[in-house]
C-alpha cells in the first residue's frame, strides 16, 4: 500500500493576522493612503513649526502691513528673493527691479524652542536680511508673516483634535459600555442624559458652556476649555453607539463565560466587551478629529477662543471678516485652505479605514 500522501504543489502561505488583512485592505485604497501621507506631512510640519517657519509668529514688520506673497525666483543656479518697496497710499507695494538677495537654507533668525524644549535659532530657509523679507503667504494686518503663524497655529489645531477624541472616546466607551452592560435604570438615566445633550444644536450648547468660564483668559486655558466643552458634548453620541454594540455583545457566549468564571463587571466591560468595538471606534475617531479642529476654529473666529497674539487658524480667519480686507488681500484666507486640506485628509483616511474595517464588503 502506497503510504505517501500527495504533496501540495505550492506550500501554503501562513495565514494572515486580522491586522495584516486590515493593513492590506487599507493599502489598496489610494485615497486613504493620500490622506495618511498628507496627515503625516502636516504633523511633521506642526512638530517642526519653529524650524520650518521663517519668522516668529509675533514678529511684526511695521513697514509691510498686508504685504502680498513674496516668492523666490530662479536666477542662474540660485533662488533669489526680490525686494518690494512701499508706494504711498494703502498698502500698495511694487517690485524693485534687479534688486535681489539670494535665498539661503539653514539661516539664523528669530529664536524659538523646538518642541518647547530645545532653544534654537536656525530656520529652514530665509534671506537673513530684514530688508529682503520672504513672505510666502504674505503678511496680515499687523505685518506678521502668515506662513509662520499658520505653522505655529497648526500646533494648536492638529493637537486639539487628538487630545479631544482621546478624552471624549474614553468617556463614551466607558459610559456606553456601562449603560449597555447593566441596562435597567442606569441605562435609562444615561441615555436620557445623552438625548438631552444631543438635542441642543452644537454651537448653542458650546456658547452656553463657554459662558460658565471667564470671557478673557489666557490662550493655554482656552485650549483646555475648548477640549472640555467639545468632549462634554461629543461623548454622548459615542456612548449611544457603544451602548447598542454592548447590548448585542452581552448575548455572546464569551461574555457569559467570563461572567460564569466570576470576573468583575468592570473587567468584563473593559477587557472583553469594549475591545470588540474597536474597529468601529478607530474609524469614528478618525472621522471625529475634524469636529475638534473646526470647533477651535469656530470659537476663535467668534472671538471667544484663542486670543491675540497667539496664532490659531480660527483667529487668523477672523481678520478676513472685514469685507474690504477680504477684497484687497485675499491671502488672508490661507488658514481656511489649511483647514480644508487637514479636514479633507482626515476624511480620506477615515473613509478608507471604514472600507478596510468592513469585512462584509
Amino acid at each position, binding site marked *: 500500500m502506497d503510504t505517501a500522501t500527495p504533496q501540495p504543489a505550492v506550500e501554503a502561505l501562513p495565514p494572515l493576522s486580522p491586522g495584516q488583512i486590515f493593513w492590506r485592505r487599507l493599502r489598496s485604497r489610494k485615497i486613504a493612503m493620500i490622506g495618511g501621507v498628507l496627515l503625516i506631512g502636516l504633523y511633521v510640519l506642526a512638530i517642526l513649526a519653529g524650524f520650518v517657519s521663517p519668522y516668529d509668529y509675533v514678529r511684526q514688520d511695521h513697514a509691510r502691513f498686508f504685504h502680498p506673497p513674496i516668492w523666490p525666483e530662479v536666477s542662474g543656479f540660485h533662488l533669489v528673493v526680490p525686494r518690494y518697496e512701499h508706494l504711498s497710499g494703502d498698502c500698495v507695494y511694487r517690485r524693485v527691479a534687479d534688486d535681489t538677495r539670494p535665498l539661503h537654507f539653514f539661516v539664523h533668525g528669530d529664536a524659538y524652542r523646538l518642541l518647547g524644549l530645545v532653544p534654537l535659532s536656525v530656520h529652514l530657509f530665509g534671506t537673513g536680511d530684514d530688508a529682503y523679507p520672504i513672505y510666502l503667504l504674505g503678511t496680515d494686518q499687523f505685518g506678521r508673516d502668515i506662513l509662520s503663524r499658520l505653522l505655529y497655529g497648526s500646533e494648536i489645531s492638529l493637537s486639539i483634535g487628538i487630545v479631544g477624541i482621546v478624552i471624549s472616546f474614553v468617556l463614551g466607551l466607558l459610559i456606553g459600555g456601562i449603560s449597555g452592560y447593566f441596562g435597567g435604570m442606569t441605562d435609562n438615566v444615561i441615555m*436620557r442624559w445623552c*438625548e*438631552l445633550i*444631543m*438635542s*441642543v*444644536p*452644537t*454651537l*448653542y*450648547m458650546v*456658547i*452656553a*458652556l*463657554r*459662558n*460658565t*468660564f*471667564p*470671557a478673557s483668559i489666557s490662550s493655554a486655558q482656552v485650549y483646555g476649555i475648548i477640549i472640555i466643552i467639545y468632549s462634554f458634548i461629543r461623548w454622548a453620541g459615542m456612548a449611544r453607539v457603544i451602548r447598542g454594540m454592548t447590548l448585542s455583545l452581552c448575548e455572546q457566549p464569551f461574555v457569559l463565560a467570563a461572567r460564569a468564571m466570576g470576573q468583575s463587571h468592570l473587567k468584563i466591560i473593559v477587557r472583553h466587551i469594549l475591545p470588540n468595538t474597536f474597529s468601529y471606534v478607530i474609524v469614528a475617531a478618525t472621522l471625529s478629529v*475634524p469636529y475638534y479642529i*473646526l470647533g477651535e*476654529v*469656530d470659537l476663535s*473666529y*467668534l*472671538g*471667544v477662543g484663542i486670543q491675540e497674539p497667539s496664532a490659531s487658524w*480660527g483667529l487668523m*480667519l477672523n481678520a*478676513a*471678516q472685514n*469685507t*474690504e480686507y*477680504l*477684497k484687497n488681500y*485675499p491671502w488672508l*484666507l490661507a488658514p*481656511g*485652505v489649511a*483647514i*480644508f486640506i487637514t*479636514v*479633507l485628509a482626515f*476624511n*480620506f483616511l477615515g*473613509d478608507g479605514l471604514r472600507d478596510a474595517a468592513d469585512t462584509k464588503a
Partner: protein
Amino acid sequence: MLNFVLKRLLHMIPLLVGVSLLTFLLMSLSPGDYFTALSQNPQISPETIARLKAQFHLDRPWYVQYFFWVKNVLSGDLGYSMAYKIPATSLILARLWNTFLLSFFALILAWAVAIPLGISAAVRKNSWVDHACSLIAFAGLSIPDILLALLALWFAAATGWFPVGGAASPIHDLMSPGEQFWDYVKHLILPAIVLAAADLAGIMRQMRGNLLDTLRAEYVVAARARGLSPRWVIYKHALRNAINPLLTIFGYSLAGLLSGAFIVENIMAWPGLGRLTMEAFFQKDSYVVVDCVVMATGLLVVGNFVADLLLAWSDPRIRLK
C-alpha cells in the same frame, strides 16, 4: 396615527424642560452678570442695581429664577433683555423667524440638489457622474462653513451682485410689497446657498448608499426579471424604499444645519438666533442666552417631530409599533 402624534408630542416636553434647566444651571455658574458692568458705573447707585435685580428675581438662587422663568414662558413672556432694554419676546421671535427662514430655504435647496445627484450617482455607479459626485461630497464634507461663508462674502463684495449682510436694505420700509419681497430674497440667497452647500454632501452620500442597497434587493431583480423597464424599476420600486432611511437622517441633518446657521449668521450678519446669542453672550444678557438656546433646541425638536411624522406617514410599520 393620532396616538402616535400624541406620544411624540408628550416626548418633547421633558426634553425641553431638561434643556432649559441645564441652560439655567450653566448660566448661574457664569462668572459675573450684566450688573457687574453696571456696578462699575459711578452714576448708578448700588440701590438701583439691587432694585433692578430684585425686579427680575436675579437676586434669588437659580432654581427660583428658573421657576419664575417657566411661569412667565407659559404665559408667553420670555423675560426682559437687559442690553436691549426691551421685552425679550419680540426680540427673540423676530430672530427665530429669521433663523427658521434661513434654515428652511437651505434645507429645501440642499435636498433639491442632493437627491437627484445621489440618484444619478447610484444609477450610474462608477461612471464619471459618480466620481464627480463623490469628489463634491468629499469637498463638501471637508470645507469649513467659515471658509465657504467668507468666500461668499468675497464674491458678494467683488461682484456687487448681492448685498453684504443683513436681512433687508435700510430703505426696505419705503419699498412696494413686490420690491420688499425681492429685497428679502436677495439678502437670503447667499447665506442659504452657503448653508445648503455644507449640508448637501451628507445627504447625497446617504441617498447614493441607500439606493445602491435597494437596487441589490431581490424584489428589484424580480421586477427586472418580469421585464419591467429599468426606469420603472428604479423610480417606482427601488427609490420608494430607499427614501425611508433618508427621512431618519432628516433630523440629524437639521441639527447640523442649525449649528451651521449659527456660524453663517455671525459671518454674514444675518440677524438670526445665532447672532443674537453671541450679542447676548458678550453683554452678559443671560435671559436672552437661555431663551436662544431653548428656542434653537425647540426648533430642532419640532424638526425631529416633523421628520417622525413624515416617516410614520411613509412607513406604516413605524406608526403601528
